[in-house]
């Protein structure tokens, strides 16, 4: 029997082989006699393709386009929405849109030919920013208003709140693009085999790829087998985007009757991959005469880019999280997914929630500071509790341990003293943020859409294999799931096998996304192991299977977005302390402290690593990670001009956890992979605002922007714009 609490850290099963460099990523496979592919993409943000001029093609080289699809083939990628074409036909909507794929045996020759392909366009005026999209600059290209998708939420009588208000304030909070910078760039290989195709891909969701690209060749998904290769980081950037990579490879493999592979280099990857949605959230907040909030109205705009793909779901999650960790008497929120001529935005750790959480946290700080109240004191008036109503008129089901987490962070950071001692504008500041993240798919999505299945197989020698579609991309799932199975069965973890999934041999347990893997699939494994346990010593070679079952009594209506959006949230509190150089505006971060509730952790060290990485990625988003796009082209295209944090940019973090077992998770665990991203930027910006005494309402905040705010910003204590 395994002794001790499951939370106690063990060595990750993949640690040593990854250190030695013996783990194979997709670029490490040879794939035998494969051709090379390189995408030919639109160089303009918006227009029509008039002509494509090809150089003379040597034998064995070919330029493959939509015209090469077989009869019945459907030139679309079947993501959540089916609007993104595999190959542009006549119209191009963004720089980097795939027009064709150049293929052939020699990599350099393929690249050389690709560069000789000339495309004539009729250029049209692009709409690049949210404002340009909303203004239909150059004419609407999606519907008649450039709105890809919209939703609205209402809780309580918000109109009455505005009628009764002593004061109504309005302000807009903005966030920018963020690039994932997974250390391993995108890459995949597609090989024809008998009556089917095999895809090897660096990805998060192998079944998504099969479903998305099989219609290109008019095939059923089972004819496109996906073998996941160990993935060197993803963060959402390999949730749907591998479909965009693998679609052209599949068509090329069909045309050439040979395997075709493609590995992006870094510049290609940054310029031509999905990003986090830029956002613009405008609040209108009704206050009574004492400054208490009566109602909050928000318009949440996300820059979706040229195609919808997954963005409606991102926007929904954004709106659901617009009230953060708070319960206000009344709210209204309208979400708009704006069409622009930029690379389509897609999943990135947090999936829409970080933008609205940053916005509401920052807005509350600004109101507090205007009123001359410590932001923590002001925010604490509205902390949400078990049983309170959520933004979708559901209830918070679980105990909310924000008070306990706050105590930990206050004690570790010395918040109370520092918050008083560091006067606004003094060059030092401490900030604090509160955040949450709804675990797993929204509402009844796990039951209605995903329908996860998982199997455990016992072999005669006592080994047990986990069969599911979850992928390892760094988050530790190759350790977490076997640990759960081994712990339940009372066998050493070495006896539990968990391979990279192959869609032809594992059941579909859903995507590795939405902070759902431990919470949902971990529970399926726990339950399967419990079913296996009484038979383990008696029987040889048998399989048990479990299916997801949604707890009863928590209704959700996906048409009206009403009800229980999430049964288990992760919760977080983060404090950040900074010092600002008064001459150069450079910021030195002096301390970072956070506490998180992820239920009962399956492995403390893995959780610790997730906290460190998520918090730092959030700090990068809030500070140095500038990704500009004003004319349809991303300005930052390499790791020397897109600046993510190094080991020297931020100090060691204070990491704290609370134990709050979740009744429907394995051993009480909940989701946490995205939670840990959601709040650090808000704490950082709160700290910098206080240090410089100015109101900051957009991120990222590189040094030149700090200087800009110091010289031209609005004083923290000044009135926020009033509306009547």
């Amino acid at each position, binding site marked *: 029997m395994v002794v001790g609490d499951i939370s106690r850290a063990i060595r990750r099963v*993949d*640690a040593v082989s990854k250190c030695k460099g013996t783990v194979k990523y997709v670029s490490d496979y040879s794939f035998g006699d494969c051709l090379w592919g390189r995408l030919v993409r639109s160089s303009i943000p918006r227009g029509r393709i008039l002509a494509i001029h090809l150089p003379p093609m040597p034998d064995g080289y070919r330029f493959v386009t939509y015209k090469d699809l077989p009869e019945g083939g459907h030139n679309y990628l079947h993501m959540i929405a089916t609007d993104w074409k595999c190959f542009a036909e006549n119209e191009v909507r963004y720089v980097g849109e795939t027009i064709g794929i150049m293929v052939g045996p020699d990599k350099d020759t393929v690249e050389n030919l690709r560069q000789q392909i000339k495309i004539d366009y009729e250029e049209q005026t692009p709409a690049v920013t949210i404002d340009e999209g909303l203004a239909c600059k150059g004419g609407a290209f999606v519907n008649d208003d450039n709105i890809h998708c919209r939703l609205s939420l209402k809780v309580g009588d918000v109109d009455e709140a505005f009628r009764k208000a002593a004061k109504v304030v309005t302000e807009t909070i903005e966030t920018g693009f963020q690039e994932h910078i997974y250390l391993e760039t995108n890459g995949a290989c597609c090989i024809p085999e008998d009556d089917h195709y095999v895809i090897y891909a660096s990805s998060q969701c192998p079944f998504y790829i099969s479903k998305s690209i099989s219609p290109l060749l008019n095939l059923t998904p089972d004819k496109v087998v996906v073998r996941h290769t160990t993935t060197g980081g993803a963060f959402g950037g390999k949730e749907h985007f591998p479909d965009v990579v693998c679609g052209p490879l599949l068509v090329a493999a069909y045309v050439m009757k040979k395997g075709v592979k493609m590995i992006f280099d870094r510049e290609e990857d940054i310029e031509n991959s999905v990003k986090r949605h830029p956002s613009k959230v405008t609040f209108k907040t009704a206050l009574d005469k004492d400054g208490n909030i009566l109602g909050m109205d928000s318009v949440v705009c996300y820059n979706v880019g040229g195609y919808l793909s997954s963005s409606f779901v991102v926007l929904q999650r954004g709106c659901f999280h617009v009230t953060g960790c708070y319960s206000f008497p009344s709210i209204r929120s309208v979400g708009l997914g704006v069409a622009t001529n930029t690379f389509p935005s897609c999943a990135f750790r947090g999936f829409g929630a970080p933008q609205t959480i940053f916005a509401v946290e920052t807005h509350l700080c600004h109101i507090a500071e205007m009123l001359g109240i410590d932001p923590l004191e002001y925010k604490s008036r509205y902390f949400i509790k078990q049983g309170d109503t959520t933004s979708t008129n559901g209830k918070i089901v679980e105990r909310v341990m924000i008070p306990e987490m706050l105590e930990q962070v206050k004690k570790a950071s010395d918040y109370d003293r520092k918050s008083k001692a560091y006067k606004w504008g003094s060059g030092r500041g401490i900030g604090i943020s509160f955040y949450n993240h709804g675990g797993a798919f929204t509402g009844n999505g796990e039951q209605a859409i995903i329908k996860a299945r998982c199997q455990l197989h016992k072999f005669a020698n006592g080994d047990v294999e986990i069969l599911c579609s979850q992928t390892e991309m760094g988050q530790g799932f190759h350790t977490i799931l076997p640990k759960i199975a081994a712990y339940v069965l009372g066998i050493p973890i070495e006896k539990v096998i968990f391979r990279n999934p192959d869609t032809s041999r594992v059941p579909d347990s859903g995507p590795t996304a939405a902070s759902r893997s431990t919470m949902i699939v971990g529970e399926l494994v726990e339950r399967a192991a419990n079913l296996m346990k009484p038979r383990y010593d008696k029987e040889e070679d048998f399989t048990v299977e479990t299916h997801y079952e949604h707890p009863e009594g928590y209704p959700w209506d996906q048409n009206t977005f009403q009800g229980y959006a999430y049964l288990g949230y992760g919760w977080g509190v983060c404090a950040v302390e900074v010092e600002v150089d008064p001459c150069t505006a450079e910021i030195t971060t002096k301390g970072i402290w956070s506490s998180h509730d992820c239920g009962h952790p399956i492995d403390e060290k893995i959780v610790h690593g997730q906290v460190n990485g998520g918090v730092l990625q959030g700090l990068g988003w809030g500070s140095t990670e500038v990704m500009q796009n004003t004319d349809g082209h991303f300005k930052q295209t390499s790791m020397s001009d897109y600046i993510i944090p190094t*080991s020297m940019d931020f100090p060691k973090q204070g990491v704290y956890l609370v134990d709050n077992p979740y009744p429907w998770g394995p051993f009480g665990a909940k989701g946490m992979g995205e939670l840990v991203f959601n709040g650090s930027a808000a704490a950082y910006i709160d700290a910098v605002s206080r240090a410089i005494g100015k109101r900051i309402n957009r991120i990222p905040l590189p040094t030149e922007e700090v200087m800009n705010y110091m010289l031209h910003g609005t004083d923290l204590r000044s009135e926020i714009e009033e509306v009547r």
Partner: protein
Amino acid sequence: MESRICFSLNGKDVSITTDPLRRLIDVLREDFDCKGVKEGCSEGECGACSILLNGKMVTSCIIPVGAADGQQIMTIEGISATEKGKVIIDAFADGGAVQCGFCIPGMVIATYYLLSNNPDPTEDEIRLGLSGNICRCTGYDLIVESVRLAAKRGGELWKK
């Protein structure tokens, strides 16, 4: 134009006839199967392709193979077989340094180089020593802790 280039790779003399302007990373990965040398950025920024050239840490993506002629090269394949390398790898595994793993061979090399030159570094010195190696997963803290653990466990070994 091709030329014959001879160097020592992980303690073994090797030679190759190739274009001397090919990137060292490509020759190591393609011709000598050193797949632990990872390509992250192609411009010497991220450190995933770090190797030791005559004992000094360099990024092999911005070095032409011609520059390796007559030199000594150690890659992760060689380092991981050394006693020092084993201490680092054990410490990384116990310290929780590894997530996606793509930066990790480079981090092991950076640690080897740091501790070989500074057997008992402070936290700031460790952070400086790792600052040429980018990691997007870990936030660095547990890598820094693991380097400290490797320094402690290795003890006298680092002074050899």
